[in-house]
Protein backbone atom coordinates (compact mmCIF):
# COMPACT_ATOMS: atom_id res chain seq x y z
CA UNK A 1 0.00 0.00 0.00
CA UNK A 2 1.97 2.88 -1.30
CA UNK A 3 -0.86 5.31 -0.61
CA UNK A 4 -0.35 5.15 3.11
CA UNK A 5 2.81 7.26 2.95
CA UNK A 6 1.49 10.01 0.64
CA UNK A 7 0.53 13.44 2.10
CA UNK A 8 -3.12 12.86 1.16
CA UNK A 9 -3.19 9.69 3.15
CA UNK A 10 -1.57 11.45 6.07
CA UNK A 11 -4.32 14.10 5.97
CA UNK A 12 -7.00 11.44 5.81
CA UNK A 13 -5.43 9.66 8.77
CA UNK A 14 -5.30 12.94 10.66
CA UNK A 15 -8.95 13.57 9.89
CA UNK A 16 -9.89 10.13 11.11
CA UNK A 17 -7.94 10.75 14.30
CA UNK A 18 -9.61 14.14 14.72
CA UNK A 19 -13.06 12.63 14.37
CA UNK A 20 -12.06 9.89 16.79
CA UNK A 21 -10.99 12.58 19.24
CA UNK A 22 -14.31 14.38 18.85
CA UNK A 23 -16.19 11.16 19.40
CA UNK A 24 -14.12 10.40 22.43
CA UNK A 25 -14.98 13.84 23.77
CA UNK A 26 -18.67 13.26 23.03
CA UNK A 27 -18.61 9.93 24.82
CA UNK A 28 -16.71 11.42 27.75
CA UNK A 29 -19.20 14.30 28.03
CA UNK A 30 -22.18 11.99 27.81
CA UNK A 31 -20.75 9.63 30.40
CA UNK A 32 -19.85 12.57 32.67
CA UNK A 33 -23.43 13.91 32.58
CA UNK A 34 -24.97 10.50 33.11
CA UNK A 35 -22.50 9.82 35.88
CA UNK A 36 -23.50 13.13 37.49
CA UNK A 37 -27.11 11.95 37.51
CA UNK A 38 -26.28 8.58 39.01
CA UNK A 39 -23.93 10.20 41.50
CA UNK A 40 -26.60 12.68 42.62
CA UNK A 41 -29.06 9.84 42.93
CA UNK A 42 -26.74 7.61 44.95
CA UNK A 43 -25.12 10.29 47.09
CA UNK A 44 -28.44 11.81 48.08
CA UNK A 45 -30.49 8.63 48.14
CA UNK A 46 -28.15 6.22 49.88
CA UNK A 47 -27.82 8.10 53.20
CA UNK A 48 -31.60 8.22 53.43
CA UNK A 49 -32.07 4.51 52.83
CA UNK A 50 -33.09 2.58 55.89
CA UNK A 51 -35.38 -0.19 56.99
CA UNK A 52 -37.85 2.51 58.02
CA UNK A 53 -38.64 3.15 54.35
CA UNK A 54 -40.21 -0.28 54.08
CA UNK A 55 -41.91 -0.49 57.46
CA UNK A 56 -43.41 2.97 57.95
CA UNK A 57 -45.96 4.82 55.88
CA UNK A 58 -45.57 8.42 54.70
CA UNK A 59 -45.96 10.82 57.62
CA UNK A 60 -45.89 14.60 57.98
CA UNK A 61 -42.51 16.27 58.23
CA UNK A 62 -40.63 15.64 61.46
CA UNK A 63 -42.40 12.36 62.24
CA UNK A 64 -39.86 9.97 60.70
CA UNK A 65 -42.11 8.59 58.02
CA UNK A 66 -41.20 6.02 55.41
CA UNK A 67 -42.45 4.98 52.02
CA UNK A 68 -44.12 1.66 52.79
CA UNK A 69 -47.60 2.69 51.62
CA UNK A 70 -46.14 4.17 48.42
CA UNK A 71 -44.19 0.98 47.69
CA UNK A 72 -47.22 -1.22 48.31
CA UNK A 73 -49.41 1.15 46.29
CA UNK A 74 -47.00 0.96 43.37
CA UNK A 75 -46.89 -2.83 43.57
CA UNK A 76 -50.69 -3.05 43.61
CA UNK A 77 -51.20 -0.68 40.69
CA UNK A 78 -48.37 -2.09 38.60
CA UNK A 79 -49.48 -5.64 39.43
CA UNK A 80 -53.09 -5.09 38.43
CA UNK A 81 -52.07 -2.97 35.45
CA UNK A 82 -49.87 -5.79 34.17
CA UNK A 83 -52.56 -8.38 34.95
CA UNK A 84 -54.92 -6.43 32.69
CA UNK A 85 -52.33 -5.66 30.02
CA UNK A 86 -50.67 -9.07 29.77
CA UNK A 87 -53.57 -11.12 28.35
CA UNK A 88 -54.75 -8.32 26.06
CA UNK A 89 -51.25 -7.49 24.88
CA UNK A 90 -50.13 -11.09 24.38
CA UNK A 91 -53.33 -12.09 22.59
CA UNK A 92 -53.42 -8.99 20.40
CA UNK A 93 -49.73 -9.47 19.57
CA UNK A 94 -50.50 -13.11 18.73
CA UNK A 95 -53.35 -11.97 16.52
CA UNK A 96 -51.04 -9.65 14.61
CA UNK A 97 -48.30 -12.23 14.22
CA UNK A 98 -50.32 -15.37 13.55
CA UNK A 99 -53.75 -14.43 12.22
CA UNK A 100 -53.54 -11.03 10.63
CA UNK A 101 -50.59 -11.04 8.25
CA UNK A 102 -52.65 -10.03 5.27
CA UNK A 103 -55.88 -8.77 6.75
CA UNK A 104 -56.84 -5.12 6.67
CA UNK A 105 -58.06 -5.24 10.27
CA UNK A 106 -54.62 -6.49 11.22
CA UNK A 107 -52.85 -3.65 9.44
CA UNK A 108 -55.12 -1.10 11.11
CA UNK A 109 -54.63 -2.72 14.51
CA UNK A 110 -50.86 -2.70 14.07
CA UNK A 111 -50.91 0.96 13.10
CA UNK A 112 -53.18 1.86 16.02
CA UNK A 113 -50.97 -0.06 18.44
CA UNK A 114 -47.96 1.91 17.18
CA UNK A 115 -49.86 5.16 17.72
CA UNK A 116 -50.68 4.10 21.27
CA UNK A 117 -47.03 3.18 21.78
CA UNK A 118 -45.99 6.72 20.95
CA UNK A 119 -48.89 8.47 22.70
CA UNK A 120 -47.66 10.74 25.51
CA UNK A 121 -48.40 9.10 28.85
CA UNK A 122 -50.08 12.22 30.25
CA UNK A 123 -52.79 11.87 27.59
CA UNK A 124 -53.46 8.38 28.88
CA UNK A 125 -53.91 9.94 32.32
CA UNK A 126 -56.42 12.44 30.88
CA UNK A 127 -58.30 9.66 29.14
CA UNK A 128 -58.61 7.45 32.20
CA UNK A 129 -59.67 10.46 34.29
CA UNK A 130 -62.55 11.09 31.92
CA UNK A 131 -63.30 7.37 31.64
CA UNK A 132 -63.18 6.33 35.29
CA UNK A 133 -62.63 9.18 37.76
CA UNK A 134 -65.22 11.51 36.28
CA UNK A 135 -67.78 8.73 36.02
CA UNK A 136 -67.23 6.95 39.36
CA UNK A 137 -66.71 10.29 41.11
CA UNK A 138 -63.64 9.10 42.91
CA UNK A 139 -59.94 8.80 42.32
CA UNK A 140 -58.99 5.17 42.73
CA UNK A 141 -56.22 2.62 42.61
CA UNK A 142 -58.05 0.79 39.86
CA UNK A 143 -58.08 3.93 37.69
CA UNK A 144 -54.30 4.21 38.18
CA UNK A 145 -53.89 0.54 37.29
CA UNK A 146 -55.98 0.93 34.13
CA UNK A 147 -53.89 3.94 33.07
CA UNK A 148 -50.72 1.89 33.52
CA UNK A 149 -52.29 -1.00 31.60
CA UNK A 150 -53.10 1.29 28.65
CA UNK A 151 -49.42 2.24 28.55
CA UNK A 152 -48.20 -1.36 28.87
CA UNK A 153 -50.52 -2.91 26.25
CA UNK A 154 -48.88 -1.51 23.10
CA UNK A 155 -45.40 -2.36 24.43
CA UNK A 156 -46.46 -5.96 25.02
CA UNK A 157 -48.16 -6.15 21.62
CA UNK A 158 -45.05 -4.93 19.86
CA UNK A 159 -42.63 -7.32 21.60
CA UNK A 160 -45.02 -10.27 21.33
CA UNK A 161 -45.54 -9.75 17.62
CA UNK A 162 -41.84 -9.26 16.98
CA UNK A 163 -40.85 -12.30 18.99
CA UNK A 164 -43.49 -14.53 17.38
CA UNK A 165 -42.48 -13.45 13.91
CA UNK A 166 -38.95 -14.66 14.69
CA UNK A 167 -40.19 -18.20 15.26
CA UNK A 168 -39.03 -20.22 12.21
CA UNK A 169 -41.81 -21.13 9.80
CA UNK A 170 -40.62 -24.79 9.39
CA UNK A 171 -41.28 -25.33 13.10
CA UNK A 172 -44.91 -24.36 12.70
CA UNK A 173 -45.26 -26.22 9.42
CA UNK A 174 -43.95 -29.38 11.03
CA UNK A 175 -46.60 -29.16 13.70
CA UNK A 176 -49.31 -28.21 11.24
CA UNK A 177 -48.34 -31.13 9.01
CA UNK A 178 -49.11 -33.42 11.91
CA UNK A 179 -52.63 -32.06 11.79
CA UNK A 180 -52.48 -29.74 14.77
CA UNK A 181 -55.03 -26.94 14.62
CA UNK A 182 -53.64 -23.45 14.38
CA UNK A 183 -54.42 -22.50 17.97
CA UNK A 184 -52.37 -25.44 19.19
CA UNK A 185 -49.51 -24.64 16.88
CA UNK A 186 -49.63 -21.09 18.21
CA UNK A 187 -49.87 -21.84 21.90
CA UNK A 188 -47.74 -24.99 22.04
CA UNK A 189 -45.12 -24.29 19.41
CA UNK A 190 -44.90 -20.56 18.72
CA UNK A 191 -45.51 -19.30 22.26
CA UNK A 192 -43.03 -21.80 23.65
CA UNK A 193 -40.37 -21.01 21.07
CA UNK A 194 -40.82 -17.26 21.58
CA UNK A 195 -41.38 -17.59 25.32
CA UNK A 196 -38.16 -16.01 26.53
CA UNK A 197 -38.56 -13.03 24.22
CA UNK A 198 -42.17 -12.57 25.24
CA UNK A 199 -41.26 -12.68 28.92
CA UNK A 200 -38.60 -10.08 28.23
CA UNK A 201 -41.22 -7.89 26.60
CA UNK A 202 -43.45 -8.25 29.65
CA UNK A 203 -40.58 -7.35 31.94
CA UNK A 204 -39.69 -4.28 29.86
CA UNK A 205 -43.32 -3.15 29.97
CA UNK A 206 -43.32 -3.74 33.72
CA UNK A 207 -40.16 -1.66 34.15
CA UNK A 208 -41.59 1.09 32.02
CA UNK A 209 -44.89 1.47 33.87
CA UNK A 210 -43.28 1.12 37.31
CA UNK A 211 -41.53 4.44 36.78
CA UNK A 212 -44.48 6.32 35.26
CA UNK A 213 -45.72 9.39 37.13
CA UNK A 214 -47.77 11.45 34.68
CA UNK A 215 -50.61 8.95 34.13
CA UNK A 216 -51.15 8.60 37.89
CA UNK A 217 -51.51 12.35 38.58
CA UNK A 218 -55.20 12.44 37.66
CA UNK A 219 -56.14 8.82 38.31
CA UNK A 220 -54.89 7.49 41.65
CA UNK A 221 -54.26 10.98 43.15
CA UNK A 222 -51.95 9.72 45.93
CA UNK A 223 -52.65 8.85 49.54
CA UNK A 224 -50.86 9.77 52.76
CA UNK A 225 -52.11 6.68 54.55
CA UNK A 226 -52.10 2.96 54.25
CA UNK A 227 -54.64 1.95 51.71
CA UNK A 228 -54.94 -1.24 49.75
CA UNK A 229 -58.51 -0.60 48.66
CA UNK A 230 -58.87 -0.48 44.90
CA UNK A 231 -61.81 1.88 45.09
CA UNK A 232 -59.93 4.57 47.01
CA UNK A 233 -57.06 6.92 46.13
CA UNK A 234 -53.75 5.14 46.61
CA UNK A 235 -50.13 6.17 47.04
CA UNK A 236 -47.42 5.26 44.57
CA UNK A 237 -43.67 5.63 44.61
CA UNK A 238 -43.34 8.01 41.63
CA UNK A 239 -46.18 10.29 42.80
CA UNK A 240 -44.80 10.42 46.34
CA UNK A 241 -41.35 11.24 44.98
CA UNK A 242 -42.83 14.04 42.88
CA UNK A 243 -44.71 15.50 45.86
CA UNK A 244 -41.81 15.20 48.29
CA UNK A 245 -39.12 16.40 45.90
CA UNK A 246 -40.77 19.79 45.58
CA UNK A 247 -41.58 20.00 49.28
CA UNK A 248 -39.75 22.56 51.42
CA UNK A 249 -38.99 20.06 54.19
CA UNK A 250 -35.55 18.55 54.11
CA UNK A 251 -36.59 15.23 55.63
CA UNK A 252 -39.21 14.78 52.90
CA UNK A 253 -36.76 15.76 50.15
CA UNK A 254 -34.39 13.13 51.53
CA UNK A 255 -37.18 10.58 51.38
CA UNK A 256 -37.84 11.60 47.79
CA UNK A 257 -34.22 10.87 46.87
CA UNK A 258 -34.33 7.55 48.72
CA UNK A 259 -37.49 6.68 46.81
CA UNK A 260 -35.90 7.80 43.54
CA UNK A 261 -32.93 5.52 44.21
CA UNK A 262 -35.25 2.68 45.12
CA UNK A 263 -37.34 2.96 41.99
CA UNK A 264 -34.29 3.34 39.74
CA UNK A 265 -32.65 0.27 41.25
CA UNK A 266 -35.92 -1.63 40.89
CA UNK A 267 -36.42 -0.63 37.26
CA UNK A 268 -32.80 -1.39 36.39
CA UNK A 269 -33.00 -4.76 38.14
CA UNK A 270 -36.05 -5.70 36.07
CA UNK A 271 -34.17 -4.65 32.94
CA UNK A 272 -31.16 -6.73 33.90
CA UNK A 273 -33.35 -9.77 34.52
CA UNK A 274 -34.99 -9.15 31.15
CA UNK A 275 -31.60 -9.09 29.41
CA UNK A 276 -30.57 -12.27 31.24
CA UNK A 277 -33.73 -14.04 30.10
CA UNK A 278 -32.93 -13.22 26.50
CA UNK A 279 -29.24 -13.94 26.96
CA UNK A 280 -29.81 -17.42 28.34
CA UNK A 281 -32.14 -18.26 25.50
CA UNK A 282 -29.51 -17.30 22.98
Amino acid sequence: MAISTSPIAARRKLKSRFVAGLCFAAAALALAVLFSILWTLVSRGLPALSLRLFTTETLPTGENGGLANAIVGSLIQVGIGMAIATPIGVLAGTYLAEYAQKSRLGAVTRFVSDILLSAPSILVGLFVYELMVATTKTYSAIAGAVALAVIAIPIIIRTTEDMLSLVPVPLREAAAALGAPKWKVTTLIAWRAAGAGMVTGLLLALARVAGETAPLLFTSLGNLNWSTSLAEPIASLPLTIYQFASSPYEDLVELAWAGALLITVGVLAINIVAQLVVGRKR
Partner: protein
Amino acid sequence: MNGSINTPAAGKTPAAAPVRKSAAAEAFFRATVILSGVIVLLLLGAIIIMLALGSAPTFEAFGIGFFASFVWNSVDEIYGAGIMIWGTLVTSLLALLLAVPLATGCAYFLTELLPATLRKPIGTVISLLAAVPSIIYGMWGFFVLAPLLSATWLWLADRFEAQPPVYEFLISASGTSIFTAGLVLAVMILPLITAMFVEILGATPVVLKESVYGLGATRWEVVREVAIPYGRRAMVGAIMLGLGRALGETMAVTFVIGNATRWSPSILSQGSTIASTIANEFAEAGFGTLKLSALLALGLTLFIISFGVLAGARALVAPRKY
Protein backbone atom coordinates in the same frame (compact mmCIF):
# COMPACT_ATOMS: atom_id res chain seq x y z
CA MET B 1 -54.60 -27.84 7.90
CA ASN B 2 -58.06 -28.23 9.32
CA GLY B 3 -59.55 -30.37 6.63
CA SER B 4 -61.14 -32.61 9.22
CA ILE B 5 -63.53 -29.85 10.23
CA ASN B 6 -66.06 -30.69 7.54
CA THR B 7 -67.13 -33.87 9.25
CA PRO B 8 -69.07 -32.54 12.20
CA ALA B 9 -72.03 -34.85 11.62
CA ALA B 10 -69.85 -37.86 12.38
CA GLY B 11 -69.72 -36.71 15.96
CA LYS B 12 -70.59 -40.11 17.33
CA THR B 13 -67.50 -41.94 16.18
CA PRO B 14 -64.89 -41.97 18.90
CA ALA B 15 -62.20 -40.35 16.75
CA ALA B 16 -64.30 -37.38 15.64
CA ALA B 17 -65.27 -36.04 19.08
CA PRO B 18 -61.88 -34.43 19.77
CA VAL B 19 -61.91 -33.05 16.23
CA ARG B 20 -65.17 -31.20 16.79
CA LYS B 21 -63.97 -29.99 20.14
CA SER B 22 -60.83 -28.87 18.44
CA ALA B 23 -62.74 -26.89 15.84
CA ALA B 24 -64.68 -25.12 18.55
CA ALA B 25 -61.44 -24.43 20.37
CA GLU B 26 -59.92 -23.03 17.21
CA ALA B 27 -62.89 -20.71 16.70
CA PHE B 28 -62.76 -19.66 20.33
CA PHE B 29 -59.04 -18.93 20.22
CA ARG B 30 -59.39 -16.99 16.98
CA ALA B 31 -62.25 -14.97 18.43
CA THR B 32 -60.24 -14.24 21.57
CA VAL B 33 -57.18 -12.92 19.75
CA ILE B 34 -59.29 -10.86 17.35
CA LEU B 35 -61.23 -9.45 20.30
CA SER B 36 -57.95 -8.40 21.91
CA GLY B 37 -56.96 -6.61 18.73
CA VAL B 38 -60.36 -4.91 18.60
CA ILE B 39 -59.95 -3.79 22.23
CA VAL B 40 -56.80 -1.96 21.16
CA LEU B 41 -58.68 -0.29 18.31
CA LEU B 42 -61.49 0.75 20.65
CA LEU B 43 -58.98 2.12 23.12
CA LEU B 44 -57.47 4.51 20.61
CA GLY B 45 -60.88 5.35 19.22
CA ALA B 46 -62.09 6.24 22.71
CA ILE B 47 -59.05 8.41 23.39
CA ILE B 48 -59.52 10.32 20.13
CA ILE B 49 -63.27 10.73 20.67
CA MET B 50 -62.70 11.93 24.24
CA LEU B 51 -60.13 14.50 23.10
CA ALA B 52 -62.19 15.64 20.10
CA LEU B 53 -65.50 15.96 21.96
CA GLY B 54 -63.80 17.59 24.92
CA SER B 55 -62.03 20.18 22.83
CA ALA B 56 -65.05 21.09 20.70
CA PRO B 57 -66.13 24.07 22.88
CA THR B 58 -62.62 25.51 22.59
CA PHE B 59 -62.68 25.42 18.81
CA GLU B 60 -66.18 26.87 18.86
CA ALA B 61 -64.92 29.75 20.97
CA PHE B 62 -61.56 30.44 19.32
CA GLY B 63 -61.75 28.62 16.00
CA ILE B 64 -58.68 27.36 14.28
CA GLY B 65 -56.86 30.43 15.61
CA PHE B 66 -56.47 28.47 18.85
CA PHE B 67 -53.31 26.95 17.41
CA ALA B 68 -51.77 30.29 16.51
CA SER B 69 -52.79 32.41 19.49
CA PHE B 70 -50.03 33.22 21.94
CA VAL B 71 -52.36 34.02 24.82
CA TRP B 72 -53.16 31.68 27.71
CA ASN B 73 -55.18 33.69 30.16
CA SER B 74 -57.12 31.81 32.82
CA VAL B 75 -58.43 35.09 34.26
CA ASP B 76 -60.32 36.25 31.19
CA GLU B 77 -60.72 32.71 29.83
CA ILE B 78 -58.86 33.36 26.61
CA TYR B 79 -56.91 30.33 25.53
CA GLY B 80 -54.44 29.72 22.72
CA ALA B 81 -51.95 26.91 22.25
CA GLY B 82 -49.17 28.97 20.66
CA ILE B 83 -47.01 29.38 23.76
CA MET B 84 -47.18 25.68 24.60
CA ILE B 85 -46.68 24.50 21.01
CA TRP B 86 -43.64 26.77 20.83
CA GLY B 87 -42.31 25.44 24.14
CA THR B 88 -42.93 21.83 23.15
CA LEU B 89 -41.27 22.14 19.76
CA VAL B 90 -38.31 24.25 20.92
CA THR B 91 -37.45 22.03 23.90
CA SER B 92 -37.72 18.89 21.79
CA LEU B 93 -35.73 20.23 18.85
CA LEU B 94 -33.09 21.59 21.21
CA ALA B 95 -32.89 18.16 22.79
CA LEU B 96 -32.40 16.53 19.37
CA LEU B 97 -29.85 19.13 18.32
CA LEU B 98 -27.75 18.30 21.36
CA ALA B 99 -28.43 14.59 21.71
CA VAL B 100 -28.03 13.42 18.11
CA PRO B 101 -24.40 14.55 17.57
CA LEU B 102 -23.47 13.31 21.03
CA ALA B 103 -25.20 9.98 20.43
CA THR B 104 -23.47 9.63 17.05
CA GLY B 105 -20.11 10.29 18.68
CA CYS B 106 -20.84 7.88 21.51
CA ALA B 107 -22.05 5.18 19.15
CA TYR B 108 -18.97 5.55 16.90
CA PHE B 109 -16.76 5.46 19.95
CA LEU B 110 -18.49 2.39 21.34
CA THR B 111 -18.64 0.37 18.14
CA GLU B 112 -15.34 1.28 16.51
CA LEU B 113 -12.83 2.69 18.97
CA LEU B 114 -13.46 0.88 22.21
CA PRO B 115 -11.62 -2.41 22.82
CA ALA B 116 -13.99 -5.27 22.13
CA THR B 117 -13.94 -6.45 25.75
CA LEU B 118 -15.34 -3.13 27.00
CA ARG B 119 -17.98 -2.77 24.29
CA LYS B 120 -20.55 -5.08 25.75
CA PRO B 121 -20.53 -3.86 29.39
CA ILE B 122 -20.60 -0.20 28.39
CA GLY B 123 -23.28 -0.86 25.80
CA THR B 124 -25.35 -2.60 28.46
CA VAL B 125 -24.92 0.33 30.85
CA ILE B 126 -26.16 2.74 28.19
CA SER B 127 -29.21 0.70 27.36
CA LEU B 128 -29.94 0.46 31.08
CA LEU B 129 -29.73 4.24 31.42
CA ALA B 130 -32.40 4.46 28.74
CA ALA B 131 -34.74 2.79 31.23
CA VAL B 132 -34.21 5.24 34.12
CA PRO B 133 -37.61 6.82 34.95
CA SER B 134 -37.96 10.34 33.60
CA ILE B 135 -38.77 11.83 37.01
CA ILE B 136 -35.15 11.15 38.02
CA TYR B 137 -33.94 13.35 35.16
CA GLY B 138 -36.37 16.04 36.31
CA MET B 139 -35.08 15.95 39.88
CA TRP B 140 -31.48 16.11 38.68
CA GLY B 141 -32.37 19.08 36.47
CA PHE B 142 -34.08 20.89 39.32
CA PHE B 143 -31.56 20.26 42.08
CA VAL B 144 -28.30 20.19 40.10
CA LEU B 145 -28.59 21.68 36.63
CA ALA B 146 -30.88 24.69 37.22
CA PRO B 147 -28.82 26.24 40.07
CA LEU B 148 -25.66 25.62 38.04
CA LEU B 149 -27.10 27.38 34.98
CA SER B 150 -28.47 30.25 37.01
CA ALA B 151 -25.00 30.86 38.50
CA THR B 152 -23.46 30.52 35.03
CA TRP B 153 -25.73 33.15 33.46
CA LEU B 154 -24.94 35.56 36.29
CA TRP B 155 -21.22 34.95 35.95
CA LEU B 156 -21.41 35.49 32.19
CA ALA B 157 -23.47 38.64 32.66
CA ASP B 158 -20.74 40.06 34.90
CA ARG B 159 -18.21 39.40 32.12
CA PHE B 160 -20.32 41.22 29.54
CA GLU B 161 -21.22 44.24 31.61
CA ALA B 162 -19.73 46.55 28.95
CA GLN B 163 -22.04 45.28 26.18
CA PRO B 164 -25.55 46.33 27.25
CA PRO B 165 -27.56 44.14 24.83
CA VAL B 166 -25.65 40.96 25.74
CA TYR B 167 -25.74 41.94 29.39
CA GLU B 168 -29.49 42.54 29.32
CA PHE B 169 -30.04 39.18 27.67
CA LEU B 170 -27.90 37.30 30.19
CA ILE B 171 -29.11 39.15 33.27
CA SER B 172 -32.69 38.27 32.44
CA ALA B 173 -31.77 34.62 31.92
CA SER B 174 -33.24 32.16 34.37
CA GLY B 175 -32.07 28.88 35.88
CA THR B 176 -35.41 27.31 35.02
CA SER B 177 -36.09 27.95 31.36
CA ILE B 178 -36.98 26.48 27.99
CA PHE B 179 -33.25 25.99 27.46
CA THR B 180 -32.87 24.08 30.75
CA ALA B 181 -35.80 21.86 29.80
CA GLY B 182 -34.17 21.22 26.41
CA LEU B 183 -30.93 20.22 28.13
CA VAL B 184 -32.69 17.84 30.51
CA LEU B 185 -34.62 16.28 27.61
CA ALA B 186 -31.36 15.92 25.66
CA VAL B 187 -29.78 14.08 28.58
CA MET B 188 -32.90 11.94 28.90
CA ILE B 189 -33.07 10.80 25.27
CA LEU B 190 -29.29 10.51 24.85
CA PRO B 191 -29.00 6.94 26.20
CA LEU B 192 -32.10 5.92 24.22
CA ILE B 193 -30.74 7.20 20.90
CA THR B 194 -27.19 6.02 21.63
CA ALA B 195 -28.38 2.50 22.41
CA MET B 196 -30.29 2.35 19.13
CA PHE B 197 -27.39 3.86 17.16
CA VAL B 198 -24.98 1.30 18.63
CA GLU B 199 -27.29 -1.48 17.52
CA ILE B 200 -27.68 0.02 14.05
CA LEU B 201 -23.97 0.71 13.48
CA GLY B 202 -23.12 -2.70 14.89
CA ALA B 203 -25.43 -4.30 12.35
CA THR B 204 -23.33 -3.17 9.38
CA PRO B 205 -22.23 -6.36 7.64
CA VAL B 206 -18.58 -7.04 8.48
CA VAL B 207 -17.88 -8.08 4.88
CA LEU B 208 -18.93 -4.65 3.70
CA LYS B 209 -16.68 -2.86 6.16
CA GLU B 210 -13.73 -5.17 5.61
CA SER B 211 -13.82 -4.67 1.88
CA VAL B 212 -13.67 -0.89 2.29
CA TYR B 213 -10.87 -1.20 4.84
CA GLY B 214 -9.15 -3.34 2.25
CA LEU B 215 -9.21 -0.37 -0.11
CA GLY B 216 -7.18 1.58 2.44
CA ALA B 217 -10.00 3.58 3.99
CA THR B 218 -9.58 5.02 7.46
CA ARG B 219 -11.91 4.12 10.33
CA TRP B 220 -13.88 7.36 10.01
CA GLU B 221 -14.23 6.92 6.26
CA VAL B 222 -15.65 3.46 6.78
CA VAL B 223 -18.23 4.77 9.21
CA ARG B 224 -19.10 7.80 7.09
CA GLU B 225 -19.16 6.03 3.74
CA VAL B 226 -20.43 2.60 4.76
CA ALA B 227 -21.94 2.23 8.21
CA ILE B 228 -23.96 5.46 8.34
CA PRO B 229 -25.39 5.21 4.82
CA TYR B 230 -26.17 1.55 5.47
CA GLY B 231 -28.10 2.35 8.64
CA ARG B 232 -29.39 5.78 7.66
CA ARG B 233 -33.07 4.92 7.56
CA ALA B 234 -32.95 3.10 10.86
CA MET B 235 -31.02 5.99 12.40
CA VAL B 236 -33.67 8.46 11.29
CA GLY B 237 -36.23 6.16 12.85
CA ALA B 238 -34.27 6.15 16.10
CA ILE B 239 -34.10 9.95 16.09
CA MET B 240 -37.84 10.18 15.53
CA LEU B 241 -38.40 7.81 18.44
CA GLY B 242 -36.28 10.07 20.63
CA LEU B 243 -38.22 13.08 19.37
CA GLY B 244 -41.49 11.35 20.22
CA ARG B 245 -40.29 10.73 23.76
CA ALA B 246 -39.20 14.35 24.18
CA LEU B 247 -42.44 15.83 22.81
CA GLY B 248 -44.68 14.08 25.30
CA GLU B 249 -42.42 14.11 28.34
CA THR B 250 -44.12 15.57 31.39
CA MET B 251 -42.22 15.04 34.61
CA ALA B 252 -38.68 15.86 33.48
CA VAL B 253 -39.97 19.12 31.97
CA THR B 254 -42.33 20.33 34.70
CA PHE B 255 -39.49 20.48 37.20
CA VAL B 256 -37.27 22.78 35.15
CA ILE B 257 -39.20 24.81 32.56
CA GLY B 258 -40.48 27.51 34.93
CA ASN B 259 -44.17 26.93 34.08
CA ALA B 260 -44.80 30.39 32.66
CA THR B 261 -47.86 30.64 30.44
CA ARG B 262 -46.75 33.86 28.79
CA TRP B 263 -44.88 34.45 25.58
CA SER B 264 -41.17 35.18 25.59
CA PRO B 265 -38.89 35.06 22.56
CA SER B 266 -35.83 34.25 24.70
CA ILE B 267 -35.22 30.55 25.22
CA LEU B 268 -33.31 31.46 28.38
CA SER B 269 -36.52 32.56 30.04
CA GLN B 270 -39.37 30.52 31.48
CA GLY B 271 -41.97 28.83 29.35
CA SER B 272 -44.17 25.77 29.30
CA THR B 273 -44.91 22.77 27.13
CA ILE B 274 -48.25 21.20 26.34
CA ALA B 275 -47.61 18.31 28.72
CA SER B 276 -46.40 20.55 31.56
CA THR B 277 -49.43 22.82 31.24
CA ILE B 278 -51.81 19.88 31.40
CA ALA B 279 -50.00 18.51 34.46
CA ASN B 280 -50.12 21.90 36.17
CA GLU B 281 -53.64 23.00 35.41
CA PHE B 282 -55.80 19.95 34.78
CA ALA B 283 -56.87 19.31 38.38
CA GLU B 284 -58.26 22.83 38.79
CA ALA B 285 -60.30 22.80 35.59
CA GLY B 286 -63.84 21.95 36.66
CA PHE B 287 -66.35 19.95 34.65
CA GLY B 288 -67.94 21.85 31.83
CA THR B 289 -65.54 24.77 32.03
CA LEU B 290 -63.87 26.29 29.02
CA LYS B 291 -60.53 25.71 30.71
CA LEU B 292 -61.04 21.94 30.81
CA SER B 293 -61.94 22.05 27.15
CA ALA B 294 -58.87 24.15 26.35
CA LEU B 295 -56.65 21.66 28.18
CA LEU B 296 -58.21 18.78 26.25
CA ALA B 297 -57.65 20.77 23.07
CA LEU B 298 -54.00 21.08 24.11
CA GLY B 299 -53.98 17.31 24.58
CA LEU B 300 -55.43 16.87 21.09
CA THR B 301 -52.73 19.17 19.73
CA LEU B 302 -50.02 17.09 21.40
CA PHE B 303 -51.63 13.95 20.05
CA ILE B 304 -51.61 15.36 16.53
CA ILE B 305 -47.96 16.42 16.83
CA SER B 306 -46.79 13.05 18.12
CA PHE B 307 -48.90 11.27 15.55
CA GLY B 308 -47.24 13.40 12.88
CA VAL B 309 -43.81 12.38 14.16
CA LEU B 310 -44.80 8.72 14.16
CA ALA B 311 -46.18 8.95 10.64
CA GLY B 312 -42.97 10.68 9.55
CA ALA B 313 -40.87 7.97 11.13
CA ARG B 314 -42.87 5.25 9.43
CA ALA B 315 -42.61 6.95 6.08
CA LEU B 316 -38.86 7.21 6.47
CA VAL B 317 -38.32 3.72 7.84
CA ALA B 318 -40.39 1.57 5.54
CA PRO B 319 -39.53 -1.84 6.98
CA ARG B 320 -40.31 -1.84 10.67
CA LYS B 321 -37.34 -1.63 12.98
CA TYR B 322 -36.96 -0.88 16.67
